[in-house]
């Protein structure tokens, strides 16, 4: 039996808080450290949380959690410089039997989640960062934080996309700009009733809205809008290497996006209250590091557990699920008194049995497919052009929809260009 903590969790985001909560509930001594002044101070996302993990993990979630709104409308839009073609999907199934998605501001939410871990018995220490790992041969035995050495039977790295811990453990090598997208976001304050009018919402109803097309000027990525209670989160996600190649900043894309006629009216009169930026690991299982070694586990963004399918980009549910799986692994290891690599391999098995690695395997080819520029320029333009031809009455005799489609394609794309995309897309997304 080691002296010190059963587990030290580095990072109080969704992975770290879920892990610490679960460990503490099982009676293990868990310490969660976070380099923010408070849990959540360094964290940003789009964003909404999808899935049942939080409801299952935290019985008081619906009553207590400081989420902004339920996701009751899901919208996807294709943009050209002038046009906007949207699919606006609303369904009572989004809220029944329980809400499936929550719009969340991380600074408020992560702090609450860390408080729940603390109530469950974990020690939460914000303002503390891990500089390095402690070692006994090949085994991780704790962390160094400033001048302090904190021993633990297991260290769980939940320190996000730029995981210092996974690198120190020798599991993650240098990150490549091809594997990362950058998100930039503004939070824009607006009166609640204005938000409800503009987005067709009432009460705690909320919208998650993704955009593809001119908002990234053809670069791999997209735009997003989420409705908070008293503000709008609006942002851009763009492939990091593509920004360099195009010699453009994500903020330039964001400013262009905000000035699109369909978007500008939604934020008109609002007041900017925060500007944020973050990296997202987007190559999924292709960039996933080894998930464990003796005395050490990696979860959440630190392990690149993010799913991008083109229509969705999710990471927080994977973070919570992996944090819980890491906790279950450490609980079993404590029972056996064995924190060796072999004992911790349970973690990999749990993730393989859950949707986490199943989804990442299903969409293994998606990250490469989603680099195809046609998705961000050709297809949004075709979709808007087709809609324009179908809807605009110009006094000319109507053509069949099929011939209208052929008219849209003419000069823009040939079947020889589109068929390979369909073929590859079939297998990738």
């Amino acid at each position: 039996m080691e002296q010190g903590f059963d587990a030290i969790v580095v990072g109080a985001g969704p992975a770290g808080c879920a892990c610490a909560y679960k460990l503490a509930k099982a009676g293990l001594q868990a310490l969660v450290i976070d380099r923010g002044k408070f849990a959540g101070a360094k964290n940003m996302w789009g964003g909404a949380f999808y899935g049942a993990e939080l409801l299952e993990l935290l019985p008081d979630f619906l009553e207590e959690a400081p989420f902004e709104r339920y996701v009751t409308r899901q919208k996807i839009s294709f943009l050209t410089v002038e046009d906007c073609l949207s699919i606006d999907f609303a369904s009572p199934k989004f809220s029944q039997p329980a809400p499936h998605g929550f719009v969340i501001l991380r600074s408020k939410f992560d702090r609450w989640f860390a408080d729940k871990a603390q109530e469950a018995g974990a020690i939460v220490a914000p303002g503390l960062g891990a500089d390095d790992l402690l070692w006994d041969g090949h085994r991780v035995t704790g962390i160094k934080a400033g001048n302090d050495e904190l021993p633990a039977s297991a260290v769980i790295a939940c320190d996000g996309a730029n995981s210092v811990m996974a690198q120190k453990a020798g599991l993650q090598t240098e990150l490549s700009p091809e594997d990362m997208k950058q998100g930039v976001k503004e939070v824009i304050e607006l009166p609640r009733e204005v938000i409800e009018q503009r987005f067709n919402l009432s009460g705690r109803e909320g919208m998650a809205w993704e955009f593809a097309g001119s908002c990234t000027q053809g670069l791999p990525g997209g735009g997003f809008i989420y409705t908070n209670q008293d503000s709008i989160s609006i942002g851009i996600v763009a492939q990091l290497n593509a920004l360099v190649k195009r010699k453009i900043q994500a903020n330039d894309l964001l400013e262009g996006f905000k000035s699109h006629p369909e978007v500008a009216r939604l934020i008109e009169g609002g007041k900017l209250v925060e500007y944020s930026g973050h990296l997202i690991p987007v190559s999924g299982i292709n960039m996933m590091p080894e998930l464990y070694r003796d005395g050490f586990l990696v979860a959440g963004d630190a392990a690149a557990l993010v799913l991008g399918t083109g229509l969705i980009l999710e990471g927080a549910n994977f973070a919570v699920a992996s944090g819980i799986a890491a906790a279950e692994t450490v609980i079993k290891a404590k029972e056996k008194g064995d924190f060796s690599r072999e004992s911790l391999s349970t973690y990999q098995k749990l993730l393989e049995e859950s949707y986490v690695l199943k989804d990442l395997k299903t969409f293994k080819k998606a990250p490469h497919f989603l680099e195809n520029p046609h998705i961000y320029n050709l297809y949004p333009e075709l979709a808007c052009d087709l809609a324009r031809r179908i809807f605009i009455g110009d006094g000319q005799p109507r053509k069949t929809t099929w011939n209208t489609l052929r008219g849209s394609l003419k000069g823009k794309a040939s079947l020889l260009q589109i068929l390979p995309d369909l073929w590859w897309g079939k297998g990738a997304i």
Partner: protein
Amino acid sequence: MNTISIEDKLAVNKFDIDKDVHIRIDEDICQTCNHHACIYVCPANCYKLSDGRITFSYEGCLECGSCNVACDKGAIDWTLPRPGFGICYQYG
């Protein structure tokens, strides 16, 4: 619609600026760099090119790590600010 500069955007954020500089650059390497990726990937305009030289300010850093990932010349010595310092998101 008027666009807002990055500097004006950063001005609404809450920072606890550390006196310790958490990022260092090797200007000699930057002089020989052919792409200056840092300028384009930094969402906070921390890197600027003036008269062929890269200059750096750390105060508005959002700690995303993009510069560190995108610089393939080894010119950026990137660490995080000391715990408790740097960007302090109120919304996130």
